[in-house]
């Protein structure tokens, strides 16, 4: 597999054959860790020229359905530590068909540009004219109209949030998919990079047609017919709203509660019934879990004039911009999601920051002088304005809030209810111990690292903290294999170790479930090591008091239990690598 390296400081690029890397580290996460290690001064400032971005795909991309993710790795301007974020859309197959396993972006352009990778060529395009366009949808349209490669390309770009270096700005691809978490958008912005287009037309020979066809059909059938993916088939991830609310696990109003009286209104069921207008899919995915709502809005002043906007929704957005902010109207929720989409902000971080600000205002830690607009739970219009301010940063308060809730609470107080873990804003689950331990020890501080929220729902009784940690790490290790194959995590029920081994075999590589699991452990350790080299200190993990105050599915959580878990994790998993 080839690695394309682009240097923005010199407007140069080169291609290297790195078969070695992919053979040892599979692809995706495994390979990105190694490339970052090779290419970057790990102590570099995330918003400096020295930061490096790696995009990596895997050996199954284009070969099998649902290997549809791209892993981005960089140093996060939000946490100051390892940044990793995954996106679908058409990015992965475009990179594969262009002939690469990974793309590395280094340096900083002197003037705004966007890059076009067209198979084996790279073009640097002047982006001065579009640099200040804040609407990521418009940026996408302009670039798409100007460039060739319709149907076989990906158009990754930033909106206003990335331009203004909001530390939780995302990179958007194909309108509705995002490298959402940990601030890749700000890294783009800091490099004067407005977008990255990859156009890929190409293919490679199938080594064993018979075997390959057999495995392909098997995977496709599993994806379509088994229960493994049913959840995503029907209501999409939004299906979680009602059950989590019933479990007392739906973070509501800055986690002052875990039941939201209006959950029904913003549930997957209600959205499907009233708003669902279309579904689309990532490349090579038969499920099409991307649910898009149609929102009809009348013109403010003209009668009988309407605009209809199409807004993609997912569970995490409903939590962060819905229940977390006390928003119980679907129209209001959709407007907030649209706003965040337009600017290219991470929805989860934005929601958590605003929820914290609302409570800080309630408690008098800050005043309307800071917030400019009176924030209160449930007030859609106020939040719409506040999102503008996060991007435009008209005063010191919003400049700080644009750096994340950890920073904001350091400056203005209210750490007890500033819901960030490892400085990354909280995902939408308050189920029990495994959920929060999972956020803390997960190497991306994401719920998807180890799915603690799901483990919590399966636990019959609360085991020892050590057992929870071991189970979470085990899950995270296997997920390193999936994210190195760049298989969509929603397809984890399809890509079991045995199937993965078979799929490898059909592509001409010998492996076994055991070997794969060992690789997972190895990649986990490598990633943790990289995190430590970037300055990660497990003792610095802060536990927001709020999670011990608000009842969850497990009742009230005890701080000592979580601390014990962290002590154990540090001893068992972190210290041996230091």
């Amino acid at each position, binding site marked *: 597999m080839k690695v394309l390296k682009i240097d923005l400081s010199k407007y140069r690029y080169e291609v290297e054959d790195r078969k070695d890397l992919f053979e040892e580290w599979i692809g995706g996460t495994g390979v990105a860790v190694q490339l970052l290690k090779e290419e970057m001064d790990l102590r570099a400032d995330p918003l400096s020229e020295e930061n490096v971005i790696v995009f990596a795909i895997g050996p199954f991309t284009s070969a099998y359905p649902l290997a549809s993710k791209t892993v981005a790795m960089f140093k996060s301007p939000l946490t100051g530590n390892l940044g990793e974020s995954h996106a679908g859309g058409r990015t992965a197959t475009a990179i594969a068909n262009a002939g690469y396993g990974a793309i590395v972006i280094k340096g900083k352009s002197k003037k705004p540009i966007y890059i076009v990778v067209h198979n084996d060529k790279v073009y640097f395009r002047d982006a001065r004219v579009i640099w200040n366009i804040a609407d990521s949808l418009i940026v996408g349209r302009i670039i798409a109209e100007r460039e060739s490669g319709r149907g076989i390309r990906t158009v990754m770009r930033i909106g206003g949030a990335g331009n203004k270096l909001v530390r939780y700005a995302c990179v958007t691809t194909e309108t509705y998919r995002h490298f959402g978490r940990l601030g890749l958008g700000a890294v783009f912005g800091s490099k004067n990079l407005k977008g990255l287009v990859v156009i890929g*037309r190409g293919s490679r020979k199938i080594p064993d047609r018979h075997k390959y066809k057999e495995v392909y059909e098997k995977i496709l059938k599993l994806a379509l017919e088994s229960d493994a993916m049913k959840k995503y088939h029907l209501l999409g991830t939004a299906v979680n709203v009602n059950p989590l609310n019933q479990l007392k696990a739906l973070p509501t109003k800055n986690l002052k509660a875990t039941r939201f009286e209006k959950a029904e209104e913003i549930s997957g069921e209600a959205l499907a019934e009233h708003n669902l207008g279309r579904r*689309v*899919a990532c490349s090579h995915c038969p499920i099409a879990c991307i649910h898009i709502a149609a929102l009809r809005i009348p013109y403010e002043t003209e009668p009988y004039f309407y605009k209809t906007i199409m807004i993609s929704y997912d569970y995490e957005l409903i939590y962060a911009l819905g229940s977390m902010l006390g928003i119980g109207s679907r129209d209001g929720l959709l407007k907030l999601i649209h706003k965040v989409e337009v600017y290219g902000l991470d929805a989860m971080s934005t929601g958590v920051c605003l929820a914290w600000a609302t409570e800080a205002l309630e408690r008098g830690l800050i005043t309307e002088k800071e917030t400019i607009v009176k924030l209160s739970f449930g007030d859609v219009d106020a939040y719409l304005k506040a999102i503008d301010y996060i991007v435009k940063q008209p005063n010191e308060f919003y400049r700080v809030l644009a750096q994340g809730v950890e920073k904001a609470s350091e400056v203005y107080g209210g750490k007890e209810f500033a819901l960030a873990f490892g400085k990354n804003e909280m995902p939408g689950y308050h189920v029990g111990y495994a959920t929060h331990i999972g956020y803390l020890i997960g190497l991306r501080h994401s719920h998807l690292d180890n799915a603690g929220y799901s483990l919590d729902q399966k636990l019959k009784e609360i085991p020892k903290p050590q057992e929870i940690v071991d189970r979470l790490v085990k899950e995270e290790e296997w997920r390193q294999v999936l994210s190195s194959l760049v298989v969509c995590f929603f397809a984890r029920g399809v890509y079991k170790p045995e199937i993965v081994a078979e799929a490898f075999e059909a592509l001409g590589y010998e492996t076994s479930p055991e070997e794969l699991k060992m690789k997972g452990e190895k990649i986990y350790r490598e990633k943790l090591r990289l995190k430590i080299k970037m300055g990660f200190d497990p003792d610095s993990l802060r536990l927001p008091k709020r999670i011990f105050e608000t009842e969850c599915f497990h009742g009230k959580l005890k701080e000592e239990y979580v601390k014990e878990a962290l002590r154990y994790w540090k001893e068992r998993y972190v210290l041996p690598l230091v």
Partner: protein
Amino acid sequence: MIIIIDMPKRLVIKDIEKCVGCGLCMFACSRRHGEIGNDYSGILPVSLSGFERGATVIFCRACKEPPCAQVCPTNALTPRKGGGVVYREDLCIGCKNCMEACTIGAIFERRNGKPALCIHCGYCANYCPHGVLGFEEVEA
């Protein structure tokens, strides 16, 4: 490579509004050629100026009087029974005339400069998960 298919059947659209842009059809078409990827694919899944407006697929309409064949200087493309064309790669010089002649842009350029186009074999229709594509008999 010589591909001769003279069954009077063709790939058709059942309901284009259902297309989600997944590209399973595109990958199927190259797979049929023993390839992983899209270089050989004669069908292209595109968004309609962005996925906010949905998706569609572009492929050969099986013309009865194919302009693409009319401009081919080497007879690499010849009219096919049932509409569309038969393509003989060994005769093709990669002049790209056909790509320009097709009004709907259903002939795509491969890495080697030669065309990739739908020859109405019907394979991809088996892989469209959403009932967009069908394979139907047509009058020859």
